[in-house]
């Protein structure tokens, strides 16, 4: 088994992820008639935060400190099964998409625990919202991957996305289109983007994800920001693999195309965020139920094919 290519891919993801929020911000700034912050702002922020000393509230325990570290570790581990341009990464085994789901679940769980550990009313509220929406988002994601497994006849992530070709799109277009839509909704909700959440607001009472991490500072905040960038890459790359089945035989060309596609995804998310307002909080579950319905329909169509 060769090691150079998976290692290059892995490092590329680790290095390029923080670029995505930068692209989204620039697109949003463009729509707002502003120039916006530098593309590399998140890199600067991470560097700055790593140099800082964290501040801890007296009411917090080790749970609060463990949250960000376990959370970012879970996401870094999840990258090991994440295909890159339809090619496998380090790890691939039968049913590894369930492993991925559990790692994401673990990251969410420790973030929520850390939030509850502060004892703050705001953070408790955020934790409650996060868990409430996860109840809808996780089944939609799971069912979507299950449907894809059914379409491709594979049960590992790399297998599924590796087996996707232009031919499958030609024969199973409705199923794949539904899955893409479902994944896109899940991406927006899981990464606290508009219309599910507003990553730019400073208003504690309306936040979901941001309010859970209000009390973190220094390197731990950096882990959280970095983890969020990895998560965005993770969901984005699944969609990119989906809509960009491999064409050329060259690894380098495929990879370059894939990275371009990821940047395109970020632009699309930025445009979407610019032209719609945020949903009322009680309506977010409807959005996620729609994603679930798309996944379920895709599975039903596939079973009946």
């Amino acid at each position: 088994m060769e090691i150079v290519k998976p290692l290059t891919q892995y490092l590329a993801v680790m290095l390029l992820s923080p670029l995505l929020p930068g692209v989204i911000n620039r697109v949003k700034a463009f729509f707002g008639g502003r120039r916006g912050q530098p593309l590399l702002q998140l890199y600067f922020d991470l560097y700055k935060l790593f140099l800082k000393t964290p501040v801890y509230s007296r009411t917090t325990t080790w749970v609060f400190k463990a949250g960000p570290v376990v959370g970012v570790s879970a996401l870094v581990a999840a990258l090991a099964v994440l295909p890159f341009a339809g090619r496998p990464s380090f790890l691939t085994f039968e049913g590894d998409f369930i492993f991925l789901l559990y790692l994401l679940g673990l990251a969410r769980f420790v973030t929520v625990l850390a939030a509850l550990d502060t004892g703050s009313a705001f953070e408790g509220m955020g934790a409650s919202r996060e868990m409430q929406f996860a109840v809808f988002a996780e089944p939609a994601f799971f069912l979507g991957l299950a449907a894809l497994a059914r379409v491709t006849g594979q049960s590992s992530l790399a297998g599924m996305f590796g087996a996707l070709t232009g031919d499958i799109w030609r024969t199973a277009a409705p199923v794949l289109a539904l899955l893409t839509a479902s994944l896109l909704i899940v991406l927006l909700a899981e990464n606290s983007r508009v219309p599910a959440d507003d990553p730019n607001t400073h208003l504690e009472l309306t936040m979901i994800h941001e309010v859970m991490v209000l009390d973190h500072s220094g390197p731990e905040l950096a882990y959280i920001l970095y983890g969020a960038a990895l998560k965005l890459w993770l969901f984005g790359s699944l969609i990119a693999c989906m809509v960009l089945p491999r064409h050329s035989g060259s690894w380098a060309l495929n990879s370059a195309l894939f990275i371009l596609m990821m940047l395109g995804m970020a632009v699309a998310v930025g445009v979407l965020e610019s032209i719609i307002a945020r949903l009322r909080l009680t309506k977010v579950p409807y959005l996620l139920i729609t994603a679930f319905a798309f996944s379920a329909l895709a599975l039903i169509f596939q079973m009946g094919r």
Partner: protein
Amino acid sequence: MKVGHLSSFDFGSADLDSSIFFETAASRLGSGGRALAYFAVPEGKAHRLVMAVGFDREGRVEVYSTLVHGPFKALTPSFPQLHLFEREIFEQAGLKPEGHPWLKPIRFNTPGAEPGIADYFTVHGSQVHEVAVGPVHAGVIEPGHFRFQCHGERVFHLEIMLGYQHRGLEKRFIGGPDGRSIHYAETLAGDTAIGHGWAYCGAVEALCGVNVPPRAQILRGIMLELERLANHTGDLGAMAGDVAYLPAASFCGRLRGDFLNMSALVCGSRFGRNMLKPGGVNFDLDSALMQELKLRLENASRDVGNAVSLLWETASVTDRFEGTGVVSKQVAEGLGLVGPTARASGVGLDTRRNFSSGPYEGFTLSVSGSGDVYSRAYVRWLEIQKSSELIGGWLNALPAGPVEAECGGLKPDSAAVSLVEGWRGQICHFALTGSDGKLRYYKIVDPSFHNWQALAMALRGGEISDFPLCNKSFNLSYCGRDL
């Protein structure tokens, strides 16, 4: 007794016997009257209660007063619009309104009082929780403490505790007017410099018996409407920002600056400071400046139209605005709300129309709504259009003549009520002179004083995540209320 708005009257003739005072007040408030101001003036060892009642439909003002030596009868149980006035009298004069449901401090300006330290409403139950916000907030805004009693995301009750911004401004006017008085008036609420400045000038001019030249009146009108344009535009942008609707938020933010810059073009201050003085205005317009203003107004109005129409055309925005934070007409009338907030709930009160004077003779603008965030936003949009139409008309037909008149001394033992429709709503200044012709007492009622309670009512039964949006749709002043 009946008095004219913006004209002085002999204060002694407003005196009533104590029992008749409360009877008259109750009957007037029960028959379409609205309390403009209700306060206690020290008189020897006793206090004199003074109430100004406005009849919006007839555009009439009545003032009554009575001497009280101790506790007096609270009218709040029958007329909730007085609840804050009576708490204020209790806090400032120590006179107890008997029968008032809860005499919580409102400005914490008595010896030993600490802002925010008071009894709060509490709700008990296994799943009820309390969320406290402020007085230090995440944004650069004024301090205020908000307590929500919640059940999950639902709000049972919101309690608003202010008083952190109290500066003791009313006392600064006593013994005046002097050179500083107008500047104190301009800083009563920083974004309403023209509104409060005009109300102060109106009170002083009424007591001097001076007539402001027409050109100065129109110049004041231009400045007041520019202030309204800037703030309404900024508010619409802020509301768009709260629902994460980027384009309207960014453009309205910039356009607010354009309107502020037009104010700066006239008087050198973006907020209209130092524009007004008793008797007239400090700055005149020449023809070049008028052309420039016309051009800028035209451009800015067109751009605002484009930016704001995005709000009504975007389904996700209207979905967010509609049905959020409803203040019913009944609540609005019961609490004596003023300004765009009241109009959005269907109350037909606009000082420019109901108590029209100066440049606003013949003013008409009918707006109404169902009391939700959408109505409050849309009313602002209608007022933006009207304001730019007014300014355009005034710039085309500015009468010639002087821009100021000489103010003499103030009439002794007199009083005057001055009402101005600031951008947040009706501003009421009540000036009272002593036998020496100096100001003996000066009472200021900012629109926010009435309207803060409406925000609490809007949140009842609503969602806690809607609070920031509701709050922006009112955009009330902390320092205007705390004085």
